[in-house]
């Protein structure tokens, strides 16, 4: 059986590379440089292993509004809706999820100028 393993993505993330965070913040939907692509691949592939599920967006109004949620790894278990995290653009949502993931994987809090919501 051909299996896809969640731990397969292993590009080493350097917590000092705040330039990559800034690059993502400038353009959450890309295009991105080579190193940011690798960083994003690692974050997206692993799917929030420190969380009870993968961060996802639930469409609350098509094309207009999205809610953050957590998709459990086990089939049949309900998606957790995070009703206090609602976004009106995909870019804004991407930035919020990126921040959560960066802080979880590096164990560091982002500096104030990089932790704000997307304008």
């Amino acid at each position: 059986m051909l299996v896809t393993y969640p731990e397969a993505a292993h590009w080493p993330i350097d917590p000092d590379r705040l330039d990559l965070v800034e690059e993502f913040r400038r353009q959450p939907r890309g295009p991105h440089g080579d190193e940011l692509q690798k960083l994003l691949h690692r974050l997206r592939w692993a799917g929030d292993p420190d969380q009870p599920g993968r961060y996802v967006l639930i469409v609350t109004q098509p094309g207009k509004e999205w809610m953050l949620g957590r998709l459990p790894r086990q089939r049949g278990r309900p998606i957790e809706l995070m009703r206090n995290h609602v976004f009106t653009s995909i870019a804004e949502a991407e930035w919020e999820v990126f921040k959560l993931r960066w802080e979880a994987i590096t164990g560091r809090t982002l500096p104030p100028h990089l932790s704000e919501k997307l304008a």
Partner: protein
Amino acid sequence: MTDTTSVLGYAWPMVVSPGEEVAFHLSSPSVSKADAALVRVRCGDPDPAGPGIRVHEMDAPFERTVPLVHQVIRPGSCAIVADGPALTSFQSFTVGAFLWPTMPGDRAQTILSRWRADTQEGWRLGLDAEGHLEFVVAAGGRTWRTATSAALLSREWVLAGARWDADAGRLAVMVRSADAQAGRDRSESVEADGPTGLEWPAAVPLVIAAHASDGGGDLFDGFYDGKIDRPRLHASVQPIDGLHRLCESVTFPMADARLVAAWDFSREMASERVIDLSAHHLHGRLRQMPTRGMTGANWDGSTDRWTDCPEQYGAIHFHSDDMADAEWEPTVRFTVPQEWRSGFYALRLRTDGGDEPVESFVAFFVRAELGKPRSNLAFVASTGTFLAYANSALRLDQVHAEAMLEGVLTLSRDDVYIQEHREVGLSTYDTHADGSGWSISSARRPILNMRPRGNVFNYGNDTHFIDWLEEMGQDYDVITDDDIHRHGVQVLAPYTCVVTGSHPEYISREVWDAFDAYQRSGGRHMYLGGNGFYWRIAYHPTVPHTIEMRRGMTGLRTWEGEAGETALAFTGEPSSTWRSNGRPPQRLVGVGFDGQVFTHSSPYRWLDGAKDPSLSWLTKGIDLATPLGDFGLRGNGAAGVEIDRVDFSLGSPPGTVWLATADRLGYGGTPAPEEIRTLHRGVMGDQNAQVRADLVYFPTANGGAVFSTGSIAWVCALSHAGYRNNVSQLTANVLKRFLDPTPL
């Protein structure tokens, strides 16, 4: 937030002719009635950047309020052998089979049984909750049990059986590993005290891969995941060597009166019957369509098709989540008026009493009757593809989904429902709970992504073309894959032009042959999609709207089938991609699948082929110095998502006119696996010119022609700027000329 799931249903049949009856099988766990309307679908995509949901309420004699009850779905496959005297005419017996369990230790599972769960009577061979083989006999309030000390391994063949010696009052379970070395050996025989005589329960079926819940004969429990090969039941006390001989035998002398049953799952492969080779004819029926044509413990690799050597394909892979028929009672019936145009239709169900408004659609299709066209244009509802993707949980279950889609997953209300309600049955993109591929898909169940407001892929995208036809004031008929499969080129022949939509991906041999014959006989085919004519499927020979596919060792596949299991049980044909069946899509439509791009879509740039003065009808009113389709609802371009290219070595006709290409897709352009021979860097779209979407035209025999766009995003660009754009103009130019009967 619109509630799209509190009311669900399916239409049966899924495709009807004017004058025929369609039944809507509906269910709701929370709503007792809903306002109902029959609607003709123009656009099913709620995206506010496009036309939005556009449906036309039909004036039809139909109940405006429908009562709803909760109807459950009971997944899980098994074989059921009706009770008969032969099943209770003995005391001592031996039972067993070759097993390839896929979820030992997940929960208790029954392999072979004549057992009532409610009264705990009968006998049962199974796996206990830890994966040990266990044998239980019980009657009169007493139970005897024995089990192995070691749990079985997942995906390793064993001979597994049990015996009850009534004279000696002993039970035994027996396991013999097929590969008894390197840590895989689970061989053992364990005995325990048993009864010296039993009274069997009355009127209980013998069940393979589950057991009866009660005496009613309709409810089953204890479903098993994995393969069972050559199950045998013998009214004698046999050591494991005796059981082994019984299971290895594939023919039986009728003189052996103690042979109660010997099932051969390689017989009547396409049917829902299992055949007993014994003198008792204890044939059974399958429920929920488990996977047949599976390699047995004796498969030796000498062939990869069950038709070559059926005796090596005596296994059925049962799944506790197999689901082919929701078995819901019909709620309302409707006879389609004769005057209705063919098209995409739906039953719309609404309530507004709860916290959120409910709006749920149940899709069905009204076909243009065979031989009675009402237009010279037909649009094909890609029902094969709709079924293949039915209730896809790919984004929920598969590790690669977020990386592939290049962004945080955006899930609909329907996805939220499917995550919790796996009983609706998944798609051929998904894996069963045991990790094996889902190869069968039916329409006797709610299909959440084949309806307006559903996830916009395939059905939703295709309605953008219907919307465009309506906007253009162009009349058309709708025909379906299912009908083309059944009636062949007769369905296509009446039309001057036939259009296939955004993703006609799943194609039976009959459908391919029909398009080939149509194109050869002067037909005009506009293929306005990407990744078309890609996978080879079969339709069930007797059950309507039911397809089977196998994902082999090539192609862009979300699961890979096991070696030797790429042939379709429904027909015996090879499955996998059409390219690996000697028919690359390029041969039929000029272009074939080469890659995906989800970062963004792109415009095409015009090539010299488009500047041929003889093609001025095609480019009329279009500035060839301007990019073609630098807009659209899918990634802001007309070329994207899944894309196809010209390749003369793969069969693009020598007469192909290469009109335009989108070959600068950036790093998001990812090539299909079959496009790469060896491993090397530089294969992505930023470096690889073979990852691209090509736009082509070529004339065929007898004045026919083909026009292909090679991109799923194409139809989602048609409505841009009030439908006044170069994608719309080009589509209109081609359609106009293709509807002109003058030979091309």
